[in-house]
């Protein structure tokens, strides 16, 4: 029998490759993995309901708002009839998301029909956020006017200075002060940095490089998610911290908020946020704090194209020309270091750095674990205003974009599939039968008639084996 020919199974490399890439979850993915009771406790707070609502897919938001004011379950068939025929796939996805997040729950109607009903806590608190009612959020106690009031400009420069401090530390710029052991621990925990084998000092990892190329919003969100992972070890309450974070994200820039009534745990959390520049506090005991732009709309990471406020648009500084030259109008060491990740620097002036994108420079970046999309994304995101006004659709020269992508494709000429090798068939007929079967099920990866070997998708191995046993018994 040829069944002993189940040889070596191919090593699966694709998973190894993807694993090393930076995973930036959005709020939905984060909450999906939270246990039910945590979700229920989260939905007690209007701020979280609001944040969750905004993260829902477009269609889901419409569904929720339609049944927000309905006091009884709505039959599932009725909900399904809201969407048009063409979008039924999206409808199914939306239903799944809403169920995953426990936003709505199944309930049976008197007539035996099954209906959807918003989770009572979620409904109550989303209504509160929209229309009012309930208790004020924890940080909005009344305050007298601050005699040391800070304006938006000050807060912006403060927050970017604090945040860049963290990034500077990551790229290993000399200055080591200004960053606490706590922040280093989070960077290590997040895998953005790792301890050097020789002297134990933290060095940046490939995820760290990818992290640097993200836009500011995504950086903050990713960093905070990693921070929240470690929250329980610090003896802080996850729900409490998340709630506070979302309240912060829905606060108004340039306004002061009170620390009165915050629990000791939250005060510690506040000090951590202060360190990363998410809030500004003049003194530790000031009794008030100002949220900065970093803290606002933190969950809103997927819509990086649309700035929320007019003055929010980041100041672009990069010009890319069709001759692959990159001009970066900057004097920040950090930005220069980032540009140098994927270009060959040519000249450096006090306010300008000129580099050129070459095959080697890009390949070096790709070897470092950065993807072409990340490079292009970075260039696009920081494109100079002049680049944007020329043609709003495509700020970068298409030739450069395509070439960077081609250089990446050069490296990915192999695709990996996990499979099981079948070989040493006794007859050509046996081989043909199994090949036909695998082919008809779409699980055949490769076959060779002369050598009578074939490779089957690993997931289908059991099924094919069963078929083979049945077949060989019959013959």
């Amino acid at each position, binding site marked *: 029998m040829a069944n002993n020919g189940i040889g070596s199974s191919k090593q699966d490399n694709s998973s190894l490759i993807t694993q090393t890439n930076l995973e930036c979850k959005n709020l939905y993915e984060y909450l999906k993995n939270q246990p039910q009771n945590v979700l229920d406790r989260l939905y007690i707070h209007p701020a979280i309901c609001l944040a969750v609502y*905004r993260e829902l897919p477009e269609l889901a938001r419409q569904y929720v708002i339609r049944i927000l004011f309905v006091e009884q379950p709505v039959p599932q068939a009725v909900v399904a009839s809201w969407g048009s025929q063409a979008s039924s796939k999206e409808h199914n996805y939306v239903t799944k998301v809403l169920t995953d997040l426990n936003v709505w729950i199944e309930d049976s109607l008197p007539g035996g029909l099954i209906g959807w009903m918003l989770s009572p806590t979620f409904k109550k608190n989303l209504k509160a956020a*929209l229309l*009012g009612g309930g208790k004020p959020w924890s940080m909005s106690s*009344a305050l007298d006017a601050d005699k040391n009031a800070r304006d938006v400009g000050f807060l912006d420069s403060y927050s970017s200075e604090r945040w860049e401090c963290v990034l500077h530390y990551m790229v290993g710029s000399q200055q080591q002060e200004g960053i606490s052991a706590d922040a280093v621990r989070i960077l290590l925990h997040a895998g953005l940095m790792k301890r050097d084998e020789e002297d134990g000092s933290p060095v940046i990892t490939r995820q760290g490089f990818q992290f640097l190329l993200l836009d500011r919003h995504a950086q903050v969100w990713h960093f905070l998610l990693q921070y929240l992972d470690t929250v329980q070890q610090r003896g802080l309450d996850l729900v409490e911290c998340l709630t506070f974070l979302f309240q912060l994200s829905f606060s108004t820039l340039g306004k002061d908020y009170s620390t009165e009534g915050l629990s000791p745990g939250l005060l510690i959390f506040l000090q951590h946020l202060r360190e990363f520049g998410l809030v500004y506090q003049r003194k530790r005991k000031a009794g008030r704090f100002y949220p900065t732009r970093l803290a606002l709309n933190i969950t*809103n990471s997927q819509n990086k*194209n649309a700035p929320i406020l007019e003055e929010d648009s980041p100041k672009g500084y990069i010009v890319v020309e069709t001759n692959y030259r990159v001009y970066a109008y900057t004097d920040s060491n950090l930005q220069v270091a980032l540009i140098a990740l994927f270009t060959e620097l040519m000249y450096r002036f006090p306010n300008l750095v000129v580099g050129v994108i070459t095959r080697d420079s890009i390949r070096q970046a790709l070897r470092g674990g950065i993807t072409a999309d990340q490079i292009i994304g970075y260039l696009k995101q920081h494109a100079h205003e002049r680049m944007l006004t020329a043609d709003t659709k495509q*700020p970068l020269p298409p030739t450069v974009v395509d070439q960077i992508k081609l250089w990446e494709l050069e490296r990915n000429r192999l695709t990996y599939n996990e499979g099981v090798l079948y070989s040493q068939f006794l007859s050509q007929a046996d081989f043909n039968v199994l090949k036909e079967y695998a082919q008809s099920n779409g699980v*055949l990866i490769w076959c060779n008639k002369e050598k009578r070997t074939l490779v089957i*998708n690993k997931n289908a191995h059991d099924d094919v084996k069963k078929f083979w046993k049945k077949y060989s018994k019959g013959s």
Partner: protein
Amino acid sequence: MNNIELPAEKEPEITSADEISLLVVILDTNPTQKMLRDKQNQLTNIVDSVVAFSNSHLMQKAQNKLAVMACHSKTSQFIYPGAKKPLDVRQVDGQYEAFLLVEKTVKQNLAELLASESSTAVTESLLAGAIAMALCYIARLQRTKPPGSKLNSRILVVSGSGDSASQYMNYMNVFFTAQKLNVVLDVCALDQHLSLLQQCCDITGGMYLKVPQITALLQFLLWVFLPEPPIREKLVLPPPVKVDYRAACFCHRELIDIGFVCSVCLSIFCKFSPICTTCHMVFKIPGPLAVKPKKRKLKL
């Protein structure tokens, strides 16, 4: 070699617009509206519904923008964002600060507007003017928006006034301007059908709805007018009504089926006049139609 592509399971592509969407709500607050005079608290109810609806629009996405206008008997005004410095609000209950700000500003500015109303003369609402103002506002935001971003704008008119053809020309001008600017005009009629505004929904691709029950106004607004135009395709919404495309004549402002049209400037008249009142073209008085002499066909 036998390469077979494995069927990859993909999640359905979920479209979500990464753009700023601006909603301008025009609320007809003219005190001469019949339904406002009939019931004492009607205006409060309507304002509450409209504010809740506006806040739901802001709730959809952090990028969404909102403006609310009051269209009064003599003037139209922006009541959110107001002309003055934004109010300094502090949370009083669980409501999100930004929503509270909208509610407070709208109510305060509206109260001021109503208090300044002195004369009791019956005039019709200046809806066309209000729409024009809204279009100007949209055009200004379009100009000042950050480079590289996209602004989708729409206007929602909420009115209980009756139909009137006296502003016909102004209406047509704003409708076609809106169409040119890619601004969608939605109309929510509270009391009577508004046939002229139906035309504008048809021209700009908006929704028209006459609310059957004023008590359920909020729910109707949320169902029909909250979805953005791109998402409307995915939802089953009331089908478009048959639009009455009758034009109003320029002489008496009456809707007519058949009339006279100036061959030079295309002005419409319900009765024949020898001089066009718009372009002063002089026409001959039509005599009996001359019978054409029959042509003799050439035979080959």
